[in-house]
């Protein structure tokens, strides 16, 4: 391994000073993916900047109808946040399924987004929730929709020295969401397939639905064909119709992949799990369908 300089930044001001130096910066937050790549020689930093203690980029709050999540917020913090559990339930569920307690105590949401793994668990949840990524750079802030953030296999739209600062999620009191995944085992497992669904309902009818499937390619895939789901009663058939649509989406997205026959069936099971969970959650809040 080539030696490199390293520094920890504690404030946004420290970071801005570094950015002015015109050096190429490589950022490390929780390090749970990065340190493995570093030791494999897949990354060779010139100046490694630790942002894991950058408090200006941490925390969960509600502002002007949006949930704001700082990029270095850990998955343990997300999993246990009452705000996330209330308004972005699928993200809390996805966070709880990432790695182990030890990993979740270090791994950050910003890191998971930037690592841009096709099997990332936070990404479909953020996709279903229509999240927006706020990017910080020497020229200021810019916002990018989560589905546009990943531009190719393990590649993001971040330019040199740019960094994710916050993630914004619109919070709506009549939206309900859920996440489910299949992996080789129950815990500490990489997703073979994952699904997040976020829907808006009124009375017992679905008004809007966003479904995002992970592990099908460079980025999660959003379900666009929602005919037959909108203004439909959320009964048992609802999950079946959703499963059918998602199954076709899988077949269409990865027609030639060896895993297609498996994934196109498994996705129906995930659709059933997710809808059962949403309906349970609704009835837990006194809304019977």
């Amino acid at each position, binding site marked *: 391994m080539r030696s490199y300089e390293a520094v920890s930044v504690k404030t946004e001001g420290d970071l801005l000073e570094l950015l002015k130096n015109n050096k190429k910066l490589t950022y*490390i937050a929780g*390090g749970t993916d990065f*340190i*493995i790549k570093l030791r494999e020689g897949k990354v060779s930093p010139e100046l490694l900047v630790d942002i894991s203690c950058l408090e200006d980029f941490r925390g969960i709050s509600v502002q002007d109808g949006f949930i704001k999540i700082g990029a270095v917020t850990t998955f343990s913090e997300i999993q246990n946040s009452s705000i996330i559990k209330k308004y972005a339930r699928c993200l809390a569920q996805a966070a709880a399924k990432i*790695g*182990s*307690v*030890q990993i979740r105590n270090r791994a950050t949401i910003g890191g998971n987004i930037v690592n841009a793994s096709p099997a990332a668990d936070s990404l479909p949840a953020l996709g279903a929730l229509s999240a927006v990524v706020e990017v910080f750079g020497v020229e200021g802030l810019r916002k990018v929709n989560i589905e546009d953030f990943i531009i190719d296999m393990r590649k993001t739209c971040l330019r040199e020295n740019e960094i994710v600062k916050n993630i914004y999620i619109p919070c709506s009191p009549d939206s309900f969401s859920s996440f489910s995944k299949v992996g080789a085992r129950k*815990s500490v497992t990489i997703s073979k397939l994952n699904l997040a669904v976020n829907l808006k309902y009124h009375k017992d009818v679905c008004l809007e639905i966003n479904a995002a499937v992970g592990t099908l390619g460079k980025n999660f895939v959003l379900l666009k064909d929602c005919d037959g789901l909108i203004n439909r009663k959320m009964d048992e058939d609802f999950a079946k119709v959703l499963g059918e649509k998602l199954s076709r989406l899988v077949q269409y997205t990865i027609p030639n992949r060896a895993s297609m026959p498996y994934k196109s069936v498994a996705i129906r099971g995930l659709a059933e799990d997710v809808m059962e969970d949403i309906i349970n959650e609704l009835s837990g809040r006194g809304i019977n369908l």
Partner: protein
Amino acid sequence: MEIVLYVNGKKYKLDVGSEERLLDVLRDKIGIKSVREGCSEGECGACTVLMDKKPVTSCLVLAFQAEGKEILTVEGLIENGELDQLQKSFIEKGAIQCGYCTPGMILSIKGLLYQNPNPTEEEIREAIAGNLCRCTGYKKIVDAVIDAVQKGEERCVRTRQ
């Protein structure tokens, strides 16, 4: 680069390389061999330590990132030469066979008990999902935790400086 670590209540000033992991520093610079390198990628949990009371895999923390943090290893659980209740319960309930996973296992459970002094079996299993054991089948480990909690959870969750 120079960092300060508080390991088992003792302050250490250390010169570390930017590529050195917390695991390397604990083992090679401080000499704590209970922190073990298994998989080196955060899967096996043998290198688990508590950092500011939270379990982390020390193979996935660069030493300079731990600057100023409080680190606890199993050695820090011993008080006046006496093992703490969780350690005793591990021995009494046969939760140790080869012993390789034990320090990490105990620290993951400590992390749980700090937050939740009276966990359910499911919560115990979730807390140790990141610690692999090839001997016990986990059953005796869970039994040991339940035993320790029953015999005095307050000793398990006491705060150390």
